[in-house]
């Protein structure tokens, strides 16, 4: 534009490429982005305020709807945080089941990422293959928890139900099938000329800047920092499995893409190890204060009925303590800061949402790039608005 005049363009909140209701106000000098200010809050539902009026068990479905692309990963975060607050230990079998569900959720999240990211940049066919595989995971969710996208399979003190034979069969099938599909994605994209030119060198961020901006998860590992909560602060018996942490160097869109593709493979390795040596035993802690009695004994036994009634009306009690516990969600460090006050309601629940900080780094990432690259960059940091706005 002559004499330095710039146009201001409003991307969103209703925009096909903003992965939801993110609005980025971009100031363009021709095609080059001079200034970018993202606006969020269009999906703010007040989940933290709602959690304060529910008891610990009732707040689990709320955590499902934070990062709805990978629901079980949030449940893992919330439930392990509450268990750390209450100081209870979950039986081994339940931990393994939780790891399987969380890793499947991570893969589901990455499927959505690869599908929409490629679609934004123009590769139409990838989303069809990605969602075909995602449907297989949805079937597994439905098989064991009864619901596809937001299974809410976790409970405080364990998981809701034991495995069904079909579940084991389907997971094994998926573990056998998925590496071939992953290879398919690689052939479609990794050496694809258009893909590499659109992604290499775009939106680079140095390790120091990434850390300073609070990035975590694949976006941080893309810049070369091997920070993964599953290794740094192991939880839910992750240290039983061996898996690698993929790390990039330059921290551009392509590196982040490679990191996530490698994470697909690593997650499959974890699931494989978990499903093979799934230990026997109960799936929920057998403390009468926390676990619901099973439905059959409730029909015949007054003490079970009385206990079930109190558990449903009051539910487990959180001690007067504060605790911060984070897990490795699909998008990064998903932390829960829980404050208990001796009653059955959480006094305060703060969700540390990784996408919130990814979106806050957008101005640093977008400036200096062309508007078309902005689409690629937004796709590469893979934000989900449910988690940003809470």
């Amino acid at each position, binding site marked *: 534009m002559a004499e330095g005049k710039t146009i201001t363009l409003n991307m969103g909140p209703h925009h096909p490429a903003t992965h939801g209701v993110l609005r980025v106000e971009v100031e363009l000098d021709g095609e080059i982005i001079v200034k970018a200010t993202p606006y969020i809050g269009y999906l703010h539902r007040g989940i933290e305020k709602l959690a304060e009026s529910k008891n610990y068990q009732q707040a689990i479905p709320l955590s499902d709807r934070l990062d709805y692309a990978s629901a079980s990963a949030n449940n893992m975060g919330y439930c392990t945080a509450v268990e750390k607050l209450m100081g209870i230990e979950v039986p081994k079998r339940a931990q393994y089941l939780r790891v399987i569900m969380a890793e499947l959720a991570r893969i589901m999240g990455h499927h959505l990422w690869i599908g929409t990211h490629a679609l934004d940049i123009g590769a139409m066919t990838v989303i069809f293959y990605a969602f075909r595989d995602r449907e297989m995971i949805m079937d597994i969710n439905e098989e064991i928890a009864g619901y596809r996208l937001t299974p809410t399979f976790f409970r405080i003190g364990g998981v809701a139900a034991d495995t069904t034979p079909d579940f084991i069969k389907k997971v094994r099938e998926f573990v056998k099938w998925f590496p071939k599909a992953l290879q398919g994605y690689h052939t479609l994209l990794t050496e694809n000329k258009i893909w590499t030119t659109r992604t290499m060198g775009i939106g680079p961020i140095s390790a120091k800047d990434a850390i300073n901006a609070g990035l975590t998860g694949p976006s941080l590992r893309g810049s070369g920092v091997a920070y993964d909560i599953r290794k740094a602060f192991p939880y839910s018996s992750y240290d039983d499995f061996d898996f690698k942490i993929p790390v990039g160097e330059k921290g551009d869109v392509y590196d982040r893409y490679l990191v996530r593709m490698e994470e697909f493979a690593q997650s499959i390795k974890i699931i494989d190890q978990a499903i093979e040596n799934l230990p026997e035993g109960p799936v929920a802690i057998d403390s009468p204060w926390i676990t619901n009695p099973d439905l059959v004994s409730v029909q015949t036994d007054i003490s079970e009925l009385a206990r079930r009634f109190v558990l449903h009306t009051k539910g487990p009690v959180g001690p007067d303590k504060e605790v*911060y516990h984070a897990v490795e969600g699909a998008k990064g460090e998903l932390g829960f800061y829980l404050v208990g006050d001796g009653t059955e309601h959480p006094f305060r629940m703060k969700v540390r949402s990784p996408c919130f900080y990814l979106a806050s780094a957008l101005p640093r990432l977008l400036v200096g790039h062309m508007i078309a690259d902005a689409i690629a960059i937004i796709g590469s940091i893979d934000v989900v608005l449910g988690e940003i706005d809470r």
Partner: protein
Amino acid sequence: MDIKGIVSRLEKTDPGAIDRVSGENEITLNFNDFNKAMQTLHDDKSLCFDMLVDIVAIDRIDRMPQSHRFDLVYILLCSKDFSRLLVRLAAGEDNEVPSVSSIWASADWAEREVYDLMGITFSGHPNLRRILTWKNFEGHPLRKDFPLEGKDFDQQFDTTSIEDY
């Protein structure tokens, strides 16, 4: 670096900053030399807490008259040895907390969210305005005295009443 190392290091650089140490990785800082202590936590070579993971604001209205109302907890991470430190700061209802957005870039949005939902103002913040709720939203929702369903839950909603940045 473990908690004892951190405390001894901080005692040397700015004495009297630490009010008390509780739990296995939590320290409470005094209000007036809070900013300097955070700066050393970030810059000091051996501490180097270079990532601000999150800022948590808790409304302790029930112990209001005796002691301060808000508790601010800054969660810091050192990317060298992946060790985590919780820094607690007590803030009253009307005093301005010094902003740390000049030290960590991630504090910019985090402080805006705390201001928006809890109503704590930060001095020295580049542009402290609402981030999750809309421009003419009255009140701060996460305060304990704010009703869950909002102030005008039963009136008919009208879209023109929403003004945004």
